[in-house]
């Protein structure tokens, strides 16, 4: 798609000095056609694999549609959205999702930053440190989640045994804490790696100059490192927040969404694949989609000045 805009833009630029009418030369037109042809396969694939399912989900969300009741299918407008938004299950799931997102992202940001600085500073055995730090991220989430689940199961796991044979996965608050812990454990290395890339953007000269001027380590971190790293932090936070908001696998294995620990994705899955209610389930999916879009929008707006490139440009 971007190819086509570039081609047209190029063609238009060529035209500008010639005259006011947007009449394309034969060559430019041919080029434009070629551009469209070249990107057509990509466009078709994109429509087939993303636009069509999304559009279909929107359509389904406007219908009363139970897979087991094929004769009861009918168009109901926004009734499914009404049902979802007026249900305490949705609001509880949204609350749980937001709590998990806020805690896991903020804690893993702090830990990830520490990890990144450690990896940045390490001179001896840098490769092994980086590799070791990445192990949790490399383990398949489901396998790791089973590990956590067994560890917290009374009379089976060492963590449960260490805490007086407790069963934290059977109660809401403690189960959510375990889920957050599993998320942090898994995603901190990813955070660290993205931040490490940002750290390498900070020129050593600036740090040295600040040191000569008598800035403390703390001041250098907040006044030099963080502002220069803003683009990297933005990207890391955006990725992690969106990922975290769509959390499914950890919860699915750890609690199955029982005892009020289900996220919005779990709620969608239950309604789609257990209840086979395509209408309600699709409405939930669309609402998740909207939430994700809002989060992305807030991030881009909120970090506007730090959008990749601009912050460095200003310096």
């Amino acid at each position, binding site marked *: 798609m971007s190819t086509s805009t570039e081609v047209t833009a190029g063609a238009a630029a060529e035209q500008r000095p010639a005259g006011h009418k947007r009449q394309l030369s034969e060559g430019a037109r041919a080029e434009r056609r070629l551009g469209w042809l070249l990107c057509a396969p990509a466009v078709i694939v994109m429509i087939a694999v993303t636009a069509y399912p999304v559009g279909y989900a929107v359509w389904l969300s406007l219908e009363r549609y139970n897979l087991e009741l094929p004769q009861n299918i009918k168009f109901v407008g926004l009734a499914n959205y009404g*049902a979802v938004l007026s249900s305490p*299950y949705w609001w509880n799931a949204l609350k749980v999702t937001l709590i998990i997102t806020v805690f896991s992202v903020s804690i893993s940001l702090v830990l990830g930053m520490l990890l990144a600085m450690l990896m940045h500073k390490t001179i001896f055995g840098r490769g092994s440190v980086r590799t070791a730090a990445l192990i949790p991220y490399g383990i398949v989430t489901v396998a790791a989640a089973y590990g956590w689940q067994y560890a917290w199961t009374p009379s089976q796991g060492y963590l449960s045994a260490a805490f007086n044979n407790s069963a934290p996965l059977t109660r809401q608050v403690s189960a959510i804490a375990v889920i957050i812990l599993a998320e942090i454990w898994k995603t901190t290395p990813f955070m660290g790696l993205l931040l490490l890339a940002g750290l390498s953007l900070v020129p050593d000269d600036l740090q040295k100059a600040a040191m000569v001027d008598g800035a403390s380590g703390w001041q250098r971190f907040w006044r030099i490192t963080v502002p220069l790293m803003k683009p990297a932090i933005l990207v890391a936070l955006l990725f992690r927040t969106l990922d975290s908001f769509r959390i499914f696998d950890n919860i699915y294995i750890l609690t199955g969404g029982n005892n009020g620990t289900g996220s919005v994705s779990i709620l969608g899955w239950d309604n789609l*694949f*257990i209840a086979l209610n395509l*209408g309600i389930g699709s409405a939930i999916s669309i609402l998740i989609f909207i939430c994700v879009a809002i989060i992305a929008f807030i991030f881009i707006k909120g970090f506007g000045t730090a959008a990749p490139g601009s912050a460095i440009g200003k310096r």
Partner: protein
Amino acid sequence: MSSGDRRLSTSRRRSRARPWPASRARRTLAGLACAGLAAAGLAACGTANASNGPVTLTFYLYPDNSGATQQAIANCDKQSGGKYTISYQQLPNAADGQRTQLVRRLAANDSTIDIMGLDVTWEAEFAEAGWIEPWTGANRTEAENGTLKAALETAMWKGKLYAVPANTNTQLLWYRSDLVPNPPKTWAEMIQDAENLAKQGKPHYIEIQGAQYEGGTVWFNTMNASAGGTVLNPDATKVTLGEPALKALTIMKQLADSPAADPSLPVQMENENRLAMEAGTAAFQLNYPFVYPAMKADNPKLFKNFKWALYPSVIPGQPAKVTIGGIDLAVSSFSTHKDLAFQAALCLRDRQNQIIGANVGGVPPTIESLYNDPALAKNYPFHEDILKSLQNASVRPKTPVYQVVSIDISHLISPARSINPQTTLNSMKSQIDQGLQSKGLVP
């Protein structure tokens, strides 16, 4: 695999095949091999091979680690005289996973499924969706001949028979005769006995499935049916919960508030119940017969006083109506060999193969007269009570949206101490009603 004891819907915790007596689990990975093939090319695992030679019928069933199903299949292959061979495709362990896989295939009109082993709560759903064939004529007559009434009832939808019962299950009251010389006849007596034991400082817990999952629904259904109630009308268009449900909820709440309840009632499933009884903290247990051989193996000392009786009544003098479990065999509407599939399904659950199922696989048979068969009676000292319980059995509400109904019920009755009979009943009525109209959400 039993089934009343299998976690169907609300809990996605892993469930294990929990057979009736006998049987030690051995894992087979045959299903995986075929799954691999299926990924490589769909045709590999199901369809028939051309015109000559036996037709291959694909049979989807829970993973049977006992080998009983494999024996039955070998018998039927031989008996068919070269007309068909049955290929056994193992479904996932958990009932939820089994249903999800079948539904996904059937919704896509998958013609490589011929016979399916369905949980006793899926028939209405699959029939209404047009995924399974009704049984008619001679096939139906043979399916019904000598089969337990309640087991057949699970396979009926809107007056038609949609499957043939292959095995069944029911719960009994298991108790410690050293603590309780005479088993209680009613719930009131049982709670009273337990409270008396508690006062004397003796083991006194009543073990029952109180977690938020299918087992909780089974508990409520048994109590409601025993009090003379139903959940839905026969067409599954109206909620019929009333006074009996109120009575059921009151007793459940009474247990939860009494010292008779195990403190971990809200997270207990069949296996936790079994373990608590084996650990010696309980006096009573309401559970499937798999607990009997387990107690024999795990705690021979307690086993000496480990006795059974019929499930206690809710209304004095009227037998309890215990919720029936089990597996029914159905023929897919997308099968290309329906006639042979009906024959094969009948063969897989015939007398000979049900005896194998009971003795090797540990699943109670659905042919009534088998309960008097000496070959069977010898292995199961409690066979008479099982049969009595099955003859009075109740069926879980039959509706295409059973999953929703069950999730609604199990979430409202667990944890049992938070039941407020009248309020809980009202919420149950309105939530199920919404579910019947595909309107509400499931948690």
